[in-house]
């Protein structure tokens, strides 16, 4: 069954790619645009290492001396081995880590129709007991969102409500100030309710900068994390089947 769904999706993707070539001459409608994005997402993800595990990023400094630079650290927890940061990029087993974002938000308000995920947690707890973070209040700025496929998207970081599960954000990539673009992990924090959401489908490189709102430590180097925003597999299969049925109707 799974192979069948994959085949249907692949077949439909190839068909829509052909349509894309045609539509460049005739003008592209939104349905085709979405389809091309899906195809590009599929291929981009295949070229990278999809990261399924739930992982953590945290902050550290060299010694906790004022002026020390904040460092973003990955792979420090027992279950997170395999994740490293190199060349300002989050890697999984030495390759670009890609986090699938598949959950379509169905909730009232601004985030209805966005896609959400919670496979990355931003924390500030792990090195707190060493004294390296003393005096700091650690924020995670969404410094940029670069589409590799798909159109521009707004990216937000926030929390899922304990009560109704609804997502709300405290940091937006479109925020005017650094504070508006930043998610607060304070000091020695490990919040399990957090998550993130994208406004559009596509593959995106999100660049994070950790900084200290108390001004004791200097900004971290940027770290880029790749996200593949794509409907859940069930939705993809339905999408592919719908496309096939449309084709058959046109031919009939």
């Amino acid at each position, binding site marked *: 069954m799974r192979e069948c769904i994959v085949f249907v999706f692949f077949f439909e993707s190839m068909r829509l790619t052909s349509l894309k070539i045609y539509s460049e001459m005739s003008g592209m409608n939104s349905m085709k645009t979405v389809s091309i994005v899906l195809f590009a997402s599929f291929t981009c993800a295949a070229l990278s290492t999809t990261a399924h595990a739930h992982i*953590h990023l945290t902050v550290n400094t060299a010694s906790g001396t004022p002026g020390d630079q904040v460092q973003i650290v990955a792979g420090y927890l*027992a279950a997170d081995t395999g994740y490293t940061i190199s060349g300002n990029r989050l890697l999984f087993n030495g390759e670009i880590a890609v986090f699938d974002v598949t959950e379509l938000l169905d909730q009232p308000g601004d985030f209805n129709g966005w896609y959400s995920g919670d496979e990355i947690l931003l924390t500030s707890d*792990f*090195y707190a007991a060493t004294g390296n973070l003393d005096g700091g209040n650690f924020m995670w700025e969404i410094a940029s969102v670069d589409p590799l496929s798909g159109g521009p998207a707004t990216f937000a970081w926030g929390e899922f409500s*304990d009560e109704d599960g609804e997502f709300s954000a405290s940091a937006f990539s479109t925020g005017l100030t650094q504070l508006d673009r930043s998610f607060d992990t*304070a000091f020695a*924090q490990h919040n*399990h*309710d957090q998550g993130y959401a994208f406004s559009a489908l596509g593959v995106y490189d999100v660049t994070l900068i950790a900084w200290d709102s108390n001004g004791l430590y200097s900004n971290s180097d940027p770290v880029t994390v790749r996200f593949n925003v794509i409907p859940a597999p069930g939705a993809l299969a339905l999408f592919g089947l719908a496309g096939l049925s449309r084709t058959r109707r046109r031919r009939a």
Partner: protein
Amino acid sequence: MQRILAIVLLLALSSLALAHNHLTVDTLSGQPGDPIIIKAGYLSGENVYTISNNRLFYNGHIAVYDLPFQLTQTGDLHNWFGNSALVLTSDFFFATGRLTGGDFMWELASVTPIAGSACIASWGDFNTSGILIPSALSNAAARIDRSFDTGIAGHDHNQACAFSTPGLYDLTFIAWDRNNRYADSAPVKVRFRVGPASIPGDTNFDSHVNIDDLTNVILEWGPCDACPADLNADGVVNIDDLTTVILNWNS
């Protein structure tokens, strides 16, 4: 009016106990033979949790975790009461070097009923299908089978506890090192209120409000922290608790 007040107070108590918090391990200096220390309140936002006299407290009162909901899953824990309000970890002090060489387990050393009948406690992880799989059972013969493994620098978000029967229980934890580098921790008791709290005045979790509950109120009259008859959780069994029992008589 009293009835409404009692319900509101019980709901307030429930929300308090549903807060998510962590326990972790530490040692004095990381030297072989150091005893493990169970710690609470070390994370931002959790400093209201403290451990004193081998007991977990919340805001100076005995911390109580409510488990009102039954697990609907099939298998061993079918219809047990569970939640994820308490997370056992071994990560926070790892970077200090004080946990170097250890592999940390949390033994469910005993389950003492304060009210209700004998009960089995378990600790485990949800699998990818959302089924809670127990890895530690309080009635297991071997210590390893009574213990939940947080490993080295572990911070597992999928864990949860489950209890077999409704009641009010003190679960005693002992943290120990499977690598035998560090000595066992002192025991720490954590209180769990298991089962639906839908019947105000039911002090013994038998789903009835009757002479047994009235007796409990009388026997526990006066200052009494998180005891079954302290129905409004104000730290004292008094006329308010007695009124709750009377108003719900024969419920």
